[in-house]
């Protein structure tokens, strides 16, 4: 009940050029929408799918110019923005419109599923190649989340296999390296290369590496100390040179100063006299004093003093250089002593292993130092050879240890990874098997259901045995087989007639969608024409299967389908009948509710003034339909004619007295004998022609009361034979004892005409 359509509102969508509401009766499991071609049936179907899911509907199956099919969703001559569809199911409403790019649907999450079977798809289910058939059914058998988890499982299996391969490769590589070294070592006697390697790798690698390091440190210390010794020699020479340059400069300065002192005294005395205004001669030699001469001598003295100043500058610089070089010499000596000390320490430490190394003596003269350093350097080649030999040994031990470890680790890993890969494979197989088994179950269930339905539609025909299955070797390939004329496992599409394929497609579709018990299922005018017997069975099937889905909506242009409900040859009370009126661009889709003819007659009987023709005509047609069904049910004898439309008189004549007396309708409220009702109707049947069909004066003489009585008698008979619950005549034979309606609450006996044998 919760997933039944309540209302569909269409505005500017496809053929719905004007706003239109189509109201559904959620109390009825089946809605039949009858409309001749071009009245808007497909628009309504597309609107339901579009309104709930934004699906393009029938546009998906046709080719239109341009890449965007959605631009053809809105009614011609309208704007896309004007288009809207709303669908109410239960208490929820979904509204769909065209967005900037794609359809947009507003409404609660998880709208009801809509499954539409269109004529164009009907045969595809059967005649398509297996892959397309699988695509059609895919959504019903998909276990997407399980498949997603299975994909992850396969990744895990692959990872485990890769880890296994890697461990295996690593073991092979390590073994190969050990075997190569074993061979290079002359393949000494051992159980295997690995055992040989284990024995070889037992040496003290740490001590070996420490010896190598000590040897290298000694060689390095020797190099450094020798270099420092050379540097010290250079610094000593520099300091000596600097001191050597300073001494002559100082001596020269002293000489210059002594000379200058004598001459300066002489000049100063002369200058004093010059400065004395009373004296014009030298007081010593009494020679006249020349001022010019004194000036010249002063100038000479000043020049000599400048030389002294220059010399002082040179002395200062030389003194600084001497100080600097002396200081550097001291530093270098300290540095060298440190290095020498280190060298001696390292050499002494290694003397136990290298006897060629010299013993450091107590004296430290330059000659001794030079000799010591030279002795150390002289054994460098032997020392280097010893280090190289140790290094080679260490390298080999390192390599053996590394690869022994690699073999051991890989061996452990292989055992673990093999077990893990095996367990993952086991899990993977279990999951895959369960999933496939489930899909197979679903397909078997669909096959069985479809086969059961098909047998109902074609009870005495040598066809059926429908079975759907997935082809093992092919991915996503759904095979279909059936039986035909005693031959089993044949492809139905190769042997069945088109109408048989139609009904097979319907059965497979219904069997599939019934797995979705909440879904809205729409049959969009799937049959072009069906004979009366098959139509009756299809109707029965659809009403029975409608219980297994949310809401079944049948669109049909087939008037016989509509009339089946109208004249109680189908469970009218369980169905809602909507009739579409002719479509025009200016008025769009229009519709009306079609009432069963019993309801129409009842309604007419209450009208004032009495619609004489309406009552007599409707009563007559209804009575014809009811008697037609009755005489058919009892195989009554009627005059043979090319036209099978019998008159009321002929139909009454076909019901013999034995049958009339025997007929009884059994209802929950009690049994009803039909003979009195039929007798009464027989006496009034002429009213149908005289008032309801033809113009004649005799009809004018018939009173309204008689016309009403005819209508009421017809209504009484109809109400007696039609089930109040399901609205259907008792026309189904299920027990071999009586006829019954769709719901089984109204029964008609006898099963066969007295004197006849049961078929």
């Amino acid at each position: 009940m919760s997933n039944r359509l309540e209302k569909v509102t269409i505005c500017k969508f496809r053929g719905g050029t004007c706003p239109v509401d189509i109201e559904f009766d959620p109390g009825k499991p089946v809605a039949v929408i009858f409309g001749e071609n071009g009245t808007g049936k497909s628009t309504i179907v597309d609107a339901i799918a579009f309104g709930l899911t934004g699906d393009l509907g029938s546009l998906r199956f046709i080719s239109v110019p341009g890449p965007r099919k959605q631009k053809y969703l809105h009614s011609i001559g309208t704007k896309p923005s004007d288009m809207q569809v709303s669908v109410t199911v239960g208490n929820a409403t979904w509204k769909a419109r065209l967005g900037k790019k794609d359809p947009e649907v507003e409404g609660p999450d998880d709208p009801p599923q809509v499954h539409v079977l269109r004529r164009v798809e009907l045969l595809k289910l059967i005649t398509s190649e297996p892959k397309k058939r699988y695509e059609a059914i895919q959504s019903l058998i998909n276990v997407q989340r399980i498949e997603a988890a299975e994909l992850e499982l396969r990744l895990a299996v692959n990872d485990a296999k890769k880890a296994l391969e890697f461990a295996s490769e690593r073991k092979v590589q390590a073994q190969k390296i050990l075997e190569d070294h074993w061979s290079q070592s002359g393949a000494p006697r051992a159980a295997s290369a690995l055992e040989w390697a284990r024995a070889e790798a037992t040496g003290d690698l740490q001590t070996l590496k420490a010896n190598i390091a000590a040897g290298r440190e000694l060689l390095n210390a020797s190099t450094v100390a020798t270099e420092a010794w050379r540097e010290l020699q250079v610094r000593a020479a520099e300091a000596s040179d600097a001191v050597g340059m300073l001494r002559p400069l100082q001596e020269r300065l002293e000489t210059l100063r002594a000379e200058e002192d004598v001459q300066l005294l002489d000049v100063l005395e002369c200058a004093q006299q010059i400065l004395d205004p009373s004296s014009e001669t030298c007081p010593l030699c009494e020679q006249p004093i020349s001022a010019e001469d004194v000036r010249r001598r002063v100038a000479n003295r000043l020049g000599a003093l400048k030389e002294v100043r220059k010399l002082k500058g040179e002395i200062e610089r030389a003194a600084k250089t001497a100080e600097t070089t002396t200081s550097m010499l001291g530093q270098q000596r300290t540095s060298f002593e440190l290095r020498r000390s280190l060298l001696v320490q390292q050499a002494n430490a290694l003397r136990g292993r290298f006897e060629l190394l010299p013993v450091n003596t107590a004296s430290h003269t330059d000659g001794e130092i030079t000799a010591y350093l030279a002795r150390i350097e002289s054994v460098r080649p032997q020392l280097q050879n010893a280090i190289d030999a140790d290094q080679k040994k260490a390298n080999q031990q390192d390599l053996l240890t590394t690869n022994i470890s690699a073999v051991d680790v890989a061996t452990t890993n292989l055992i673990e990874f093999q077990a893990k890969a095996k367990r993952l494979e086991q899990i993977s197989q279990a999951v895959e098997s369960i999933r496939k088994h489930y899909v197979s179950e679903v397909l078997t269930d669909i096959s069985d259901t479809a086969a059961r339905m098909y047998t109902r539609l074609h009870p005495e025909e040598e066809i059926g045995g429908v079975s759907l299955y997935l082809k093992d070797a092919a991915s996503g390939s759904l095979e279909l087989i059936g039986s035909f004329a005693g031959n089993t496992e044949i492809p139905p599409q190769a042997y069945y007639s088109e109408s048989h394929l139609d009904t097979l497609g319907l059965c497979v579709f219904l069997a599939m969608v019934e797995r979705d018990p909440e879904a809205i299922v729409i049959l969009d005018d799937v049959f072009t024409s069906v004979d009366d017997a098959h139509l009756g069975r299809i109707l029965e099937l659809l009403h029975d299967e409608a219980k297994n889905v949310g809401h079944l909506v049948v669109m049909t242009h087939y008037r016989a389908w509509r009339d089946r409900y109208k004249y109680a040859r189908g469970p009218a009370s369980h169905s809602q009948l909507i009739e579409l009126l002719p479509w025009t661009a200016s008025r769009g889709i229009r519709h009306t509710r079609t009432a069963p003819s019993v309801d129409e007659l009842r309604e007419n009987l209450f009208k004032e003034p009495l619609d004489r023709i309406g009552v007599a005509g409707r009563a007559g047609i209804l009575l014809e339909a009811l008697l037609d069904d009755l005489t058919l049910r009892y195989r009554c004898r009627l005059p043979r004619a090319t036209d099978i439309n019998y008159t009321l008189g002929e139909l009454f004549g076909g019901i013999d007295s034995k049958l009339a007396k025997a007929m009884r309708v059994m209802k929950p409220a009690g049994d009803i004998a039909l003979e009195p009702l039929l007798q009464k109707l027989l006496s009034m049947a002429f009213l149908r022609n005289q008032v309801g069909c033809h113009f004649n004066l005799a009809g004018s003489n018939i009173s309204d009361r008689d016309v009403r009585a005819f209508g009421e008698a017809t209504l009484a008979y109809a109400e007696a034979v039609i089930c109040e619950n399901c609205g259907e005549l008792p026309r189904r034979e299920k027990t071999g004892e009586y006829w019954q309606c769709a719901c089984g609450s109204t029964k008609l006996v006898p099963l066969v005409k007295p004197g006849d044998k049961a078929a």
Partner: protein
Amino acid sequence: MSEMADITVAKRVAAELLRLGFLKPDRAERFAQDLSAGKVKSEEWKLLADPPHAAGAGNVK
């Protein structure tokens, strides 16, 4: 409807893995829920396949 199918298959898988000893009884229901939601990733499958004595064995979140 597809969700129902996932749940059905997930429950069957959990029961089978329980029977095979890959799942502990107290983890089976949760595992089925995760599986039906497509939440079991490769690392969790690996944990499930750990040897019985391993810390992660059967302890899929």
